[in-house]
């Protein structure tokens, strides 16, 4: 694969910190798009605001860097406007689950064919290390100097509870798996959410003795296991990876298109 075809080389080297996991996710995303044989003109990438949200600037698709937490709402308009386009929505954990939580659950419920990718570094990277709703209980951040008191979201369970028709999870350590899951998510007809655990060595790592990027990725390997695997079964404390929800359901744009055809005779 010629990665550079899909990126805006003039902005490289990019601005992410050395070892930041977000670049690995972006690389996997490019790989997924490539593996699906999509043309660049039929892909739209829409982010919110955050370190993760630098991604659209780096990618040579139709790109949009929106407002913190609102990417899925913008994406809803784009998809409704052009149902034929592939719309991918990379978001940070704060972006997706703190300020943007409502759009996430509604997108999941509505089942518009969007691919949401949460780059979950379990911290606010962009603003310098505050806790997010996915920062594990007890961990430290600049706004939780005594440790986080409130339980974190399990994004997979949240999306499932909201009715998502496709939910998957991986980590930056599992880069190839991430690419495959992203490809499957994009291929899925309907809303899909892929959570990728990503390292922020600069803030999360430093605040929580997580070590450098390499150490954090090793941790991802240790604390996760493929869903349905022996390891997962033996240790329920492990975070499961893989496709965790997959249910065929009517896609919203398709249903709406059907309605328009019925009412107006318009072929779309």
């Amino acid at each position: 694969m010629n990665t550079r075809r899909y990126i805006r080389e003039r902005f490289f080297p990019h601005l992410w910190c050395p070892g930041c996991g977000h670049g690995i996710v972006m690389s996997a995303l490019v790989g997924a798009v490539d593996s699906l044989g999509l043309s660049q003109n039929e892909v739209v990438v829409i982010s919110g605001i955050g370190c993760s949200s630098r991604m659209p600037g780096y990618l040579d698709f139709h790109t949009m860097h929106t407002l913190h937490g609102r990417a899925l709402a913008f994406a809803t308009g784009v998809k409704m406007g052009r149902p034929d386009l592939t719309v991918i929505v990379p978001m940070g954990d704060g972006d997706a689950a703190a300020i943007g939580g409502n759009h996430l659950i509604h997108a999941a419920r509505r089942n518009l064919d969007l691919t949401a990718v949460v780059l979950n570094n379990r911290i606010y990277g962009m603003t310098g290390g505050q806790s997010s709703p996915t920062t594990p209980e007890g961990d430290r951040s600049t706004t939780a100097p005594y440790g986080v008191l409130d339980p974190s979201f399990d994004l997979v369970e949240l999306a499932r509870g909201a009715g998502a028709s496709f939910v998957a999870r991986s980590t930056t350590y599992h880069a190839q798996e991430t690419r495959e899951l992203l490809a499957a998510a994009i291929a899925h007809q309907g809303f899909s959410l892929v959570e990728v655990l990503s390292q922020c060595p600069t803030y999360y790592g430093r605040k929580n003795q997580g070590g450098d990027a390499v150490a954090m990725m090793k941790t991802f390997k240790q604390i996760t296991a493929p869903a349905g695997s022996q390891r997962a079964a033996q240790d329920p404390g492990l975070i499961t990876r893989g496709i965790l929800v997959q249910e065929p359901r009517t896609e919203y744009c398709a249903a709406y298109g059907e309605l328009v055809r019925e009412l107006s005779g318009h072929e779309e």
Partner: protein
Amino acid sequence: MPKETIFAQGNEAVVQGALYAGLDFYAGYPITPSTEIAEILAQRLPQAGGRFIQMEDELASLCAVIGASLTGLKAMTATSGPGFSLMQEALGYAVMAEVPCVVVNVQRGGPSTGMPTAVAQGDVMQARWGTHGDHAIIALTASNLADVFLMTVEAFNLAETYRTPVILLLDEVVGHMREKLVIPGPGEVEVVQRLRTSVPEGTDYHPYLAREDGRLPMSDFGGVHRFNVTGLVHDMWGFPSNDPAVAYGLLHHLVDKLENRAETLARYQDFFCDDAEVLLISYGSAARSALHLVEQRRARGMKIGLLELNTLWPFPAQTVRKYCRGRGHVLVVEMNRGQLHGEVQKAAEQPERVYLANRYDGVFISHKDIMQVLHVVLGKGV
């Protein structure tokens, strides 16, 4: 040839105007007194091949509208005070990213939840200054259904022409009032279509580079040009920049493209102004009561006239100054605590002659209310 004559609500006139202008996409969240716009469009839009979606809130609605617009669609949302407050962040985004779209605010009594079913015109200044940072905005209004229709079409036209969100600032009385509406036939009213770039595939396209005439041709998402859209200060390709010169240029552009055209953008009507010694300035439903009074008093020989503004922002200061010149008294008639009154005073050469006839208790201002103020102004007491 008119297409059809209907007896309809102001909110339906908005729908008719929007469909006439080519509305393709509506996203919204219900709120009194604008809800009928959504309800009618939920029915009509898919019939016309367009798309309607009810979003989870008002902010999401405007975000969706912006997204849809970037795919080339004419897009709109409608709300009222509380929802308009919630939209402010996205409104600033549309300004910054120069995305054409229409935001209807059918005003009700505020602040806060206020008086949800009562009439008010309290969001005039918010329409101008509600989002953070320096910016400019277009806001139109109307007092009768024919004008609601025309101003809705105009809102889309100006949005497309200037690549900007346009606010249609109605009020509860206009929104809910029913009267005859003659829907123009195709071609009777000009409809501005999106200006798309003529730059061919493979040639560098600059989404944020104005042509000589000041317009910025667009390219739809999904088309042959791939560019970036952001709410950050950006260069002519749409990529973020921290260069002070770029920031300076962009802010100038964003504000000046509208503020410097204030008189071009000014839509207004005058009634009996030529020899008027007393000039009423009004807008929206309040202008109906003002005109009622003017006609009534003219019949009794009083030299009184009305300037009805359809463009509120950018404020047509020169036009207003010209109209105020040489009048004995100017009365701004509005349903708030003097929001446009302040602008008229700034514009007028003799601000001390600019008075306010207003009402903000939820009751529709009447010709009698205005007359009462006029009495006082004319030194005749109450």
